[in-house]
């Protein structure tokens, strides 16, 4: 999560310096949740569909930083080769599908990956997970996908980061239930609520949900309450978030809380954390520098075909 924060701060600077074309979407304030999920998953075995605020989860799942910087900076060598940008990236062959912008759409995709693994006899001990925001819970895709996963009793974990604003729309214009976790009962799946600013609590709740799914207890929903500590994207200053909320409990920075928790619980020392910071900053710098030097896509050599099949067929 520390590495993700440092990377995203760098992306923000690059954006403000005009070095990134298109949007930059940060997970600032949501790293504890995202990293807890990414850490609980096993790359090469599980599948994970990250959403827009999941740099921490991606990194924890094993996505190399260079995939991020190449995609943001438009390198022809990145996984999306300049054909898609920013957080719309993935490695489907490594269990990480590339999100589309339409929210909720990855829920049934993860269900389908798990469904296929079951058909192939490869589902034992496997988990599929996806993250989503409070706004996306209002989509038909979210409902259809989660209901389908429940019907099929798939080992799926859906982590809802309720950051209280869908772009600028507050919770009370998004849903009418007291807490989104109440919905789990309606789907017939497990449901857990957690304070998403608290790393230790979040890690425990999410790893437990992942364990339950892995052990065959069907889909699990985790609703993590927190606050987005940036705008929707870097083009947005988030000024619609009321001051009392920013200064309130959920406005606290999960990274600072996490550092304190690690030190207080003798998990890491202040020096060790400082060393992680330095190492991460260096790694981020290398990934940015490398992507910046690489070739960009060439419209004259681009094959301009959306099909893998070469027509005409003989």
């Amino acid at each position, binding site marked *: 999560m520390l590495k993700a924060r440092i990377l995203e701060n760098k992306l923000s600077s690059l954006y403000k310096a005009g070095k990134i074309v298109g949007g930059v979407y940060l997970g600032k304030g949501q790293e504890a949740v995202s990293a807890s999920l990414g850490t609980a998953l096993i790359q090469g075995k599980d599948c994970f569909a990250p959403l827009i605020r999941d740099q921490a989860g991606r990194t924890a799942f094993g996505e190399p930083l260079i995939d991020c910087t190449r995609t943001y900076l438009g390198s022809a060598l990145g996984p*999306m080769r300049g054909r*898609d940008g920013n957080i719309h990236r*993935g490695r489907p062959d490594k269990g990480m599908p590339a999100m589309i912008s339409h929210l909720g759409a990855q*829920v049934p*995709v993860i*269900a389908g990956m798990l469904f296929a693994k079951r058909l192939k006899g490869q589902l034992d001990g496997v988990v599929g997970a996806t993250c989503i925001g409070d706004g996306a819970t209002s989509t038909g895709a979210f409902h259809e996908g989660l209901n389908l996963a429940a019907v099929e009793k798939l080992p799926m974990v859906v982590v809802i980061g309720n950051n209280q604003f869908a772009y600028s729309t507050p919770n009370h214009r998004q849903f009418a239930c007291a807490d989104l976790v109440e919905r789990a009962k309606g789907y017939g799946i497990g449901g857990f609520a957690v304070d998403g600013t608290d790393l230790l609590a979040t890690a425990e709740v999410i790893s437990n949900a992942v364990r339950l799914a892995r052990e065959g207890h069907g889909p699990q929903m985790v609703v993590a309450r927190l606050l987005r500590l940036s705008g929707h994207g870097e083009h947005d200053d988030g000024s619609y978030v009321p001051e009392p909320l920013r200064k309130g409990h959920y406005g606290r920075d999960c990274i600072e809380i996490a550092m304190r928790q690690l030190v207080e619980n003798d998990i890491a020392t202040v020096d060790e954390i400082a060393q992680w910071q330095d190492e991460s900053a260096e790694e981020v710098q290398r990934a940015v520098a490398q992507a910046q030097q690489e070739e960009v896509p060439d419209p004259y050599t681009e094959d301009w*075909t959306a099909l893998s099949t070469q027509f*005409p067929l003989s």
Partner: protein
Amino acid sequence: MSVTYIDAIREAQEKLLREDDRVFLYGQDIATFGGAFKATKGLADEFPNRVFDAPISEDAMMGLAVGAAIEGMRPIVEMQFADFSSIAFNQIVNQAATHFYRTGMPIPLTVRLPSGGTPGSGPFHSQSLEGIYAQYPGLVVVTPATVSDAYHMLLDSVALDDPVIYCEHKFLYRWLKAKSINGDHLPIGQARITRPGKHATVVAYSAMVHEAVRAADRLAQDGWEIEVVDLRSIKPLDIDTVLASVARTGRLLAVGEAFPWGGVTAEVVSRVTEEGFHLLDAPPQRLNARDTPVPYHPKLWAAHRPTPESICDALRRLLAF
């Protein structure tokens, strides 16, 4: 012994399930019940755990198919009616269709769309959506008009590594019969000259091929020889076969059952005008359904879509130019 169009679709799925472990069927009421049109009758018994009832969640059905295709499977999704695929539109055009271009990983799935009108079906069980799907990059769109094509093109669709929209016409399901499923087995992307002629070309696809042949039969009584081209696949569109026909006849009428704004007939006329303007002896014509929802009452319905009569009228005007 004869084979119907829907028998062919069922036989193709049976063969696919028997011969390819990667294939599974997913759709509403398709398992024990055998499907709203019985296209999967008995398949769930023959292939347990390969034929699944889906909840009424077209978006999630397609999302599941995309996920399964990522995992190397070859799902066939049955939409109960083509009309309901509007709910799955996002997953089809934004998820499945963009996947290969974006990630380099193709998505081999087939969506079966029971398409087109039948008497009494009304606005929401009659639509022809091939033109809408063909508009999006990354999809192959096929529209079989014969029993043999229904069979072979379904096999070929599943064999393709790309997402295929397989538009099967409901009116043909039981009405269209053949002695066997054997045929010329043309590849996807190649049109067929269904009936040779020299005075005018009718380009049609799906059920409209049969209406065009009927119209051609009538005009033959007056000595006109009408060539009927069956596009077979909408995307890719075999414009070469169409142009070659227009080169012989000098006259073009494109007939489709879909709504008239844009669409397949507009594409055909546009391409022929662009690439074969010098071949035309008369302004190219289009004949489509009317620009209203598909009506319920059989009398309204019959006047909404092109018929042998309206095709004859259009051809007579074209021939008189």
